[in-house]
């Protein structure tokens, strides 16, 4: 997928998250893109690695900065103590003109992720995204092994929280399969 196509999807995602009442800070955008890409197989091509609050993409972080520079996204400060939120800016309108097919093709996936994660907070996003990452690293491992791995990565997450996170990710996956949202 071209960089500008990715921008079209990122802008659509940010707009949808905000419309759904989501906070759309950087962590929110990072984890929802991670789920779009890794759970629903939307081929956005961002490289993720374990970092703050779970999987994080420096490519995506650069993309977000680039989109701010191009006037496609903007940052809105929040009342302390909270961090800023992303919002769609005037320069994003051109992305609809340039990539109508891409936006239309992945509209169902965007809708699904926004419905599932728009109200998730930082802690929940961290648990779910790290669980999804562990699953990709240990595809054939037992649940106990995955829980152990997650808790090793994130010592502040206890085993019960980890188990719940894997269960929730699995439920999302089953629902996505039922709706035929996972790209081959």
């Amino acid at each position: 997928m071209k960089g500008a196509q990715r921008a079209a999807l990122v802008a659509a995602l940010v707009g949808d998250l905000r419309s759904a009442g989501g906070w759309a800070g950087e962590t929110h955008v990072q984890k929802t893109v991670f789920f779009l890409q890794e759970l629903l197989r939307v081929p956005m091509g961002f490289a993720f690695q374990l970092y703050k609050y779970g999987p994080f993409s420096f490519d995506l972080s650069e993309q977000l900065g680039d989109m701010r520079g191009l006037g496609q996204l903007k940052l809105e400060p929040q009342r302390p103590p909270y961090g800023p939120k992303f919002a769609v800016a005037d320069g994003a309108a051109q992305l609809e003109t340039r990539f109508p097919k891409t936006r239309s093709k992945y509209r169902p996936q965007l809708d699904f992720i926004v419905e599932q994660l728009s109200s998730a907070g930082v802690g929940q996003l961290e648990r779910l995204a790290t669980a999804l990452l562990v699953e990709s690293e240990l595809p054939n491992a037992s649940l106990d092994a995955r829980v152990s791995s997650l808790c090793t990565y994130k010592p502040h997450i206890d085993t019960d929280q980890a188990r719940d996170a894997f269960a929730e990710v699995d439920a999302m996956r089953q629902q996505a399969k039922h709706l035929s949202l996972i790209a081959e």
Partner: protein
Amino acid sequence: MSYLVYPGATHRRFEHSLGVMELATRIYDVVCDAANLTDEVRDIVPAAGTHARVYWRQVLRMAALCHDTGHLPFSHAAEERLLPDGVNHEILSEAVIRSDEMSAIWKEMHLDADDIVALAVEPGDGVVLPPWKAILNEMITGAVFGADRMDYLLRDSLHSGVAYGRFDHARLIDTLRILPAARQDESESDPGDPTPQLGVTLGGLQSAEALVLARYFMFSQVYLHRVRRIYDKHLEDFLVEWLPAGHFSGRLDDHLAMTDAHVTVAMLQASADTTAPGHIHARRVVNRDHFKVLYAPTPIDVRANAAGAKQLFDAACEKYGSEAVRYDRYSKGGSTDTFPVLTTEGVQASNGLSDVLGNVPIASSHYVFIQPELAPQARRWKDTNLADIIEARPEDEEEGDT
């Protein structure tokens, strides 16, 4: 290549590395001072007078000294295209630190090379540093308050003569603190990873603003200067033709044997020899016969169509040939650059306290360059056809294109 635009910018990475070592040490001494620690982070910092406190200070200094040893000649100008897959300057820096020669030194100093590597380079894929090492790494490589950034802004400002790169680094360092990460959203009971990060007291906020502004000015005026950028392109083109296999080998021995001086001499020789590989590109640099700006989109152009300049580049290639045109697109700016600020009401996110931080523009470079001999006619062609060429239109949306 900045010295070709700012003649005083001839300083080297060695003095920069000394500067990073000095600043990182000052940061360490300030943030580890017991008087500057909050209860949430006190336990992660080794106590004063302990072996660990002294050990990690020395590791930090050595990591700061070695953090850039993996950079290629002319560093960032050369690295994007000219290293083999899987090799970058951080991998080379690690190789230098772990080399036999350096290992003998670390052994004599009773330092662990693993610890030095952990602090000297940004964490790689899958690497999660424990809180103390993460803080130490941030002291050198941190996106906002890293000593690397502080030093290069101040040093490059001094040598290039660009005053905007200066900021009150002494005041800023005095106000640095290890703080819990600032809250992001309103889920107060579920804040996620509590790993602390570097922040400032409220009194240091203006110094932090000055640092962020300095970065913007230095990028927009020096690092992304249009002439500097086209010289980077010509250098890259020369290296592709001059280097065996069209890229650096990525091997440590080869890396240590190649310096800026080798490349400069090679360009001088190639510029005078019409049969030498890279002759034309070397001549463009040595004779200052670089390509000229054909088009630089305005902010209004970009908001209407961010791909407009690329569309013009494609059209110019079709009209004048791809060898006569170059395209440059680069932006520099972290996504949010938010950091924690210690106030009388607790730790708060910087962007909520500062109008400046959220409104600093993203420095960017966006040009279409043309061969100087063609510049007059190309500009006339551009002026006649620009509106049609840069209009936003549906693009090829086949996946797999990058």
